[in-house]
């Protein structure tokens, strides 16, 4: 058997051992599929009825979202409400929040949000809540 064939087979064997090891170890590694970004819960919660205007909108995600491209808007009967810049919770990187800069009047509101994980696939969602105050 020529040296070239032996060398080629050796490379193939080494690569095969390496990757079979990885494949066998993969179940112990973090399951990437399970880490796909999604909204776990929000404050206010979806469909919640509040007695007063919320001070901020808080979004709890399943993994760390990219802050730079995250946006939150609140829309009611009067149009879009003033919302501050989206910020990250200092103690938990998976939580984003935005201040409601002017108190919301009585009525129903829709929160629309957009963010992504590091791979920059946009993830969007919206939910509604109601403020029952100041009528």
């Amino acid at each position: 058997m020529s040296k070239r064939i032996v060398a080629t087979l050796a490379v193939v064997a080494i690569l095969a051992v390496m990757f079979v090891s990885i494949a066998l170890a993969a179940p112990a590694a973090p399951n990437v599929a399970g880490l796909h970004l999604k909204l776990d819960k929000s404050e206010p919660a979806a469909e919640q009825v509040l007695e007063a205007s919320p001070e901020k909108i808080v979004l709890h995600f399943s993994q760390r979202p990219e802050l730079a491209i995250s946006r939150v808007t609140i829309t009611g009967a009067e149009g879009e409400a003033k919302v501050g810049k989206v910020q990250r919770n200092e103690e938990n990187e998976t939580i984003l929040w935005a201040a409601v800069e002017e108190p919301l009047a009585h009525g129903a509101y829709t929160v629309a949000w957009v963010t992504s994980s590091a791979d920059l696939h946009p993830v969007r969602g919206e939910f509604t809540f109601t403020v029952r105050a100041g009528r």
Partner: protein
Amino acid sequence: MFLIGAAARFGGYLCVFAIVGMVVFRLLARARLPAEPAPAGGVASWQAALERRAARGGLLACSALVVFDLVRLWEQIKGFSGADPATLELAGVILDGTLWGSGWKLQVAAAAAAGLCFGAAARRWPAAWPLAGGLALLVAVSRPLTGHALEQGSWLSLPVILQAVHVLAAAVWIGTLFAVLALGLRGARSLPAPRRSAAIAALVAGFSPVALSAVTALFMAGAATSFLYLDSLGALFATGYGLVLLAKVGGFALVAAAGYFNWQKVRPVLDAGAGHGDAAGETGAVAGGEDADRRAQAGEATLLRAASLELAIAVAVLALTAVLVALPMPAG
């Protein structure tokens, strides 16, 4: 928008494969083709002409890659701007404020620098080819930095490393096959029969071990990545991602089968024709040589058809890959 993104990824992969293929082809040609004396009258030797064509091919691929990456950036901006117009401000936020943006900048910088080096190599500047080779490697391994593999938020995560190996191995295999077909086999047609057979046989013989190693690395890295991305066997059949992955694996099997056919059936015929070519020397006249010539020509024609089929199926698999990476991940 999905189709635009998938098309830009497809075009990007084609360019990456061509870039890496030109570098590996040049290494193969240098290592395997017999040295030629410099011809008279300042005309470049056949091998020097091959190298220049490879350099120009690399330059063209780098230029096209930058264009495709710009389209991907635009697609990304539109993904966040929605119905609003895409703005430079949003582009700046993505490029300067996200890990994806950092990866994109690295990719484009590597492609642009590699293009400059290929241009210098076409003018036979010293050290241009080694630099082009290093940058071609960077172009290939940086592709996962703007894909699903980045979801764990680190350039050094296991998915990124596996994907880098996967892309590089695919580029070495398919890109070099393309270069051998487009430059080597077609360029060899200008040579007289004995030298043509020897040159083609030498190129194919040099490509075979490279392809075998690359296919192994490609398959292993791809399989390991699939274990990470699909949390159950059922997800293969229950998600769009899984179904496209199955189609990709089927296409890979076809490509590998075509490659195996070339290796086992066509190569011996080429080698026999090359052996006759070595014995014929300059005159090409050896007793009983006409039969060997005909067999060698038939082998070359078969190789061209089989290798072209292998390449065509590989391009189709690449199109599936572009769709795969544009699809959202199967949710856990």
